[in-house]
């Protein structure tokens, strides 16, 4: 099946198998391996990307469902050398250790801050509910998102 979509600001057209998942398409066809796979039951959030601006788990969608959509993956967050304020905040606050959950966390943070530019700690924790991190205990991820919010609002 033919799909056309925009990924990180560039248009792409591909002929793909209808049963291919979106995350598989991103990783295997587009070589965008920053989006990770941590489970097979939509439970971990490692595969989170934004689709038309909203965070979605790319393992739960078929690539064909993204036809005509605009996708942003972790690879599209930085502006050349310049990292996005959310990425900067994760670095500044040690919001990552092994880095495996990190792309999903950052993309979820985009969504959290889009709908709520001044989230409380509780709202951030609630917003991260769909994303596992096994390394950080979430403490520094929450702090990162708090700092990113301040940064983006200033």
């Amino acid at each position, binding site marked *: 099946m033919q799909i056309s979509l925009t990924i990180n600001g560039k248009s792409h057209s591909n002929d793909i198998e209808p049963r291919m998942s979106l995350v598989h398409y991103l990783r295997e066809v587009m070589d965008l391996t920053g989006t990770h*796979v941590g489970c097979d039951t939509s439970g971990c959030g490692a595969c989170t990307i934004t689709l038309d601006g909203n965070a979605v788990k790319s393992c739960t969608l078929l690539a064909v469902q993204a036809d005509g959509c605009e996708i942003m993956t972790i690879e599209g967050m930085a502006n050349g050398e310049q990292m996005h304020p959310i990425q900067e905040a994760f670095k500044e606050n040690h919001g990552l250790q092994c880095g495996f959950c990190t792309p999903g966390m950052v993309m979820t943070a985009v969504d959290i801050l889009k709908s709520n530019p001044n989230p409380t700690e509780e709202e951030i924790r609630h917003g991260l509910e769909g994303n596992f991190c096994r390394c950080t205990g979430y403490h520094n991820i929450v702090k990162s998102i708090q700092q990113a919010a301040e940064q983006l609002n200033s």
Partner: protein
Amino acid sequence: MGNFIGKSVKRREDARFLRGAGRYTDDIKLPKMTQAAFVRSPYAHAKVLNIDISEAQKADGVVAIYTGQDGCGAYGVPCGWQVNFKNGDTMREPVHPLLAKDKIRHLGEAVAIVVAETLELARDAAELVEVDYEELPAVTDPKKAMEPSAPLVHEEWGDNAAFDWCIGNDRTEVEAALASAHHVTEMEYRNHRVAPNAMEPRSYIADYDINAGKWTLYTSTQNPHLIRLLLCAFVLGIPEHKVRVVSYDVGGGFGSKIYHYTEEALLTWISKEIGRPVKWTSDRSEAFLTDAHGRDHVVHSKMGFDKDGKIVAHLTDEYCAMGAYLSTFAPAVPTYLHGTLFQGVYTTPLIHLNVVAPFTHTVVVDAYRGAGRPEATYLLERIISKAAKEMKMDPADIRFKNFIPPFDGIDEPGYQTQVALQYDSGNYEGVLKRGLEMLGYEDFRKEQTKARKNGKLLGVGISTYIEGCGIAPSAVVGSLGARAGLFEVGHVRVQPTGKVQVFTGTHSHGQGHETVFAQFVADKLGIPMDDIEIEHGDTDQVAFGMGTYGSRSLAVGGSAIIKSVEKVLEKGAKIAAHKLEAAEKDLEYAEGKWTVKGTDKSISFGDVSLTAYVPHDYPEGLEPGLDFSSFYDPSNFTYPFGTHIAVVEVDKDTGKVDLQRFIACDDVGNVMNPMIVDGQIQGGVVQGVGQALLEEVVYDDSGQMITGSYMDYAMPRADDVPMIETDRTVTPCPHNPLGVKGAGEAGAIGSTPAVVNAVVDALSHLGVTDIQMPVTPQRVWKAMQN
């Protein structure tokens, strides 16, 4: 403190991770790479009657299919630690085959592997493999596994024990002391089974180069050299110099990626058979079924006290599951990493532990963050808190009463325990005092009394732990059954321009070695961090190493690097003396240059480096170059310790436990990077909280796993935990050059009993004295009703 040591330097590795440019194994694609899928047993215990691959072979894109009847069936993975029976009989060590032949011993054991052009095609074809099984009764509980009627995991030995073992004082002496004790506190419980759940599932790619006769194995491992050694010398019998093991970025390990897994060896074997690279990445369901689990001890314990609350004796019997086979470190976990910590931080004069380690029809159990030490800490910290309640003492007071007094281990030897170890240095009352201060203990007790009057269930739990880290002095572990040395290698290569490459045999899978190791090397050499690169994870680059686990990387790996740095400076001084026409003893080294004391004559590190590689005007007889490798074998373990305190509120209608505060005051010796140490503690604490409140691997009686996905296995999510309040005391390790003790496991060791103690405290006025982990709402609710 130098320019970098002790500072929260931001991590260099973050840039690639934050840009989605990490290099995890599954991200690697090789030309002509094939993909593998497994056929795994749906039964825990069964005979394999027949495997029919004929339909699968005809499927699209299939490259090859192998079963245990093929050549790979001749191989098995070894165990790295031998713990014999206490009567001297040899540990029972079954063959752990790469693919099951005629017998299945745990759910998910692999019976066939299908290799195809794509993953989808491999999975499609795997579905066409027909296996006839005859299901047999299974046993999954370690205590039941020792009953005479229990189904046998390995028939040849007549019962399921892999070994039984004891440590400490003479049992009869301990029993006698208990019989005459003023008070005896008793506990029976299960330190239940958990799944490590590193977020990156295991992944391997094997690639055989027919022209060079050389294999490359890309693997998500914590210890590439150990995997190479096991693969070459103990499994496939292939030449070690023809094998390269690469482990770039690894998405968490927590112990589960230490071991040499069957899939690694099988893929390596297949890559030569098919002459093409082959990849396999576990999915999460397979991870639950095949990654080594942690804990699973059935415990019966008695602790005796005198009338002042001083411990007089401690006796424990445990059944500790090994699973269906013996994983790489498995026998060491409930023995030398567990029984040796039964002294805890207390002066207990008489201790005896007996461990029976049975095979069970489950996946293997091995080290999981803390490995044996969390289980020891859970026992000691629960039972002493339970005793305090029974004896109407304050849980902090009973601890102060029993602490080993502070010692720095510098002029006097450390503290000799009843269970083989000698602690290096410690100040256990210091961390408890600080922890209580952080909480505001007295105010909390007042608040608790008030809350109770208002019908609120508020509780506080204390845990004061110690752990043995910096694994490990080779001769000591050798005498205890380890089949490997546990030294570390640090290689410092100074280039002609004075830039430095450091090669370490430890491995970073989240710990931040690329940053921390560069910090102390920069300080020792007096050069900028930017001039230093840390390399790890490739056996062709790094001479040798034993990997990362047991909080060893800095204490052992860092010490090896320091040794090489010292050799660089020693040789550099000879070159500098020659160039400065001074005597070596008249030189001092600081801020990246050698200076003739009392003069302004100096030469920089960069100039000396260049001279070493352009040795025209050079000391006679001295070799060119500035490149040193060192092996460091520690003289002792290191012993971090700390106090963890949890505050919980229990919902009296639903039994749900709300963790309101968590306080951790840890002492990990000197700290290189406080930000990273705090991060390690926070993460470890939440893993320990996970075991206390949420996580449990449950097998039913037939050996089916009923918690095999994130739908059923509850791990802590962001809204299950509060911010973690951390602080530190600093008691340096007296026997390694950086004075460090290790911080990777502490969080997971201290936290679990603190949480359960808090829940019991919250419910104690209702008559609750103990509660089984994980403390689910259902368990709490039931306990409240009784």
